[in-house]
């Protein structure tokens, strides 16, 4: 699983949860909060992306992610550790 694959899944889930984000070029530097996601929206994105990627990241690790770059890194580290 590559960083680009993970980001692409997260980006698709963000657009599903926040349709208005479809008009924005979402980058790794964005945070979901910047894109207009409230806490429940953020959980919906993270849960759906994990489901699609077939991984399960403990919440304690997710709280370390403050932008999409760090979220992708947490997912990638988790996927590699369990590969």
């Amino acid at each position: 699983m590559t960083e680009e694959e993970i980001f692409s899944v997260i980006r698709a889930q963000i657009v599903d949860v926040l349709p208005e984000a479809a008009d924005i070029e979402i980058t790794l530097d964005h945070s979901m909060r910047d894109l207009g996601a409230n806490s429940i929206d953020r959980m919906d994105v993270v849960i759906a992306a994990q489901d699609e990627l077939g991984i399960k990241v403990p919440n304690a690790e997710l709280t370390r992610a403050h932008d999409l770059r760090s979220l992708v890194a947490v997912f990638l580290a988790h996927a590699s550790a369990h590969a």
Partner: protein
Amino acid sequence: MTHIPGAVAVTAAAVLSPLADDLDGFTAALLAGRSAVTLPSPEDSADDSAGGEACLPVAALDGFTLADWAARHLPDEPAAAARLRKVAGRAALPARTAACVALRAVRDSGLGAGELADGTALLVAGSNLALAHQAETVLGHDRAPGRLRASYALTHLDADVIGVVSELTGIQGEGWALGGASASGTLALVHGARTVAAGWAERVLVVAPAAELSPVEAEAFRRTGALAHENLRGEPARMCRPFDRDRQGFVRGQAAAAVLLERPEAARARGAEVLAEIAGHGQRLDARRGTEPDAGGQAAAMRAALATAGLTPEDIDYVNAHGTGSVLGDETEAASLHQVFGARPDLRVNSTKPLTGHCLSAAGLVEAVATIAQLRAQTVHPNPNLEHPVAELALAGRTAERRPLRTALSNSFAFGGINASVVIRVQP
């Protein structure tokens, strides 16, 4: 002596139904006697295991989307359309439909942001509204637990409708969800009128979301024998037949409605158009659980509504009956109407359900809007499927009839022995 609380003005009325998504279109469809009832094909049915028999007729909001609604109602306001999509986009159907009718009613009312924020209360009609959303989520969770959305914690609640509507309209007064099965819409209208008359709020937005059933509730209704499903399957528009000899049960419908209530003098002072007035309201229980209607309780609710309006039965020009097309229900309502009104030839009685289907918890408010539409048009809409009238009542015929109409009664009777009536009138 009964206290007469004073009439309350209706200054906006919005509707979203398979017949139309605005008041003018809805009025035209009613007067034309157009029915939205269709019979889904077995391929469209959620449950095809039992073959064609499992398909039940329905007047459904097929194809309704927030995007289409916004394109029609907010064409020059992309920011408002985007807000609607953001706030309500992932909510369940009841909240999405409530958002549309609430926005439309608030815009039509001409109220400003300040008036909505301060002094306006919100009443949402119905309970257990998002049953299909709940069933889909539970079944989906069984198949794939990982996919459960955190937001279901919110979207399964009737309270989500309050949140969605208040965020979109800016209403910051009291907010309630008020349920009483098929009488919910009328009960919310009653409570809204009392709230304004008592001065508990300057004005009230009453919203009846489209209620949805899962396939399980629909099938349970069928098993009670309450649903029309056997005869006339080739002509679904004829399947719902209130007060007709060949009636066979009710047909489900989906619609949402909203009305804005305020004191008549306050409406006049701000130059708002008064569409109609809620002049009286009555509610009575049968003290009997179950599905069987009771003419005594129905008549008591109608008499209570007349009494709070300070009117006699002779003052009523038109009755919008609960009239579901149920075999026993219609017979009972015919008896209760006879108790209250006798055999007055100058009265007119019809039922809106052959056209809209039975919109369950929204039915009372949808039918109050249908009543206002007919009073304003001075025309009673047809009972299109009334081929062999069974009741000794002055039933409207199979074509629209123009006649002087000033004061109407709208009935809603629900499981659990809940009977509710409102008196609605227009100034000549």
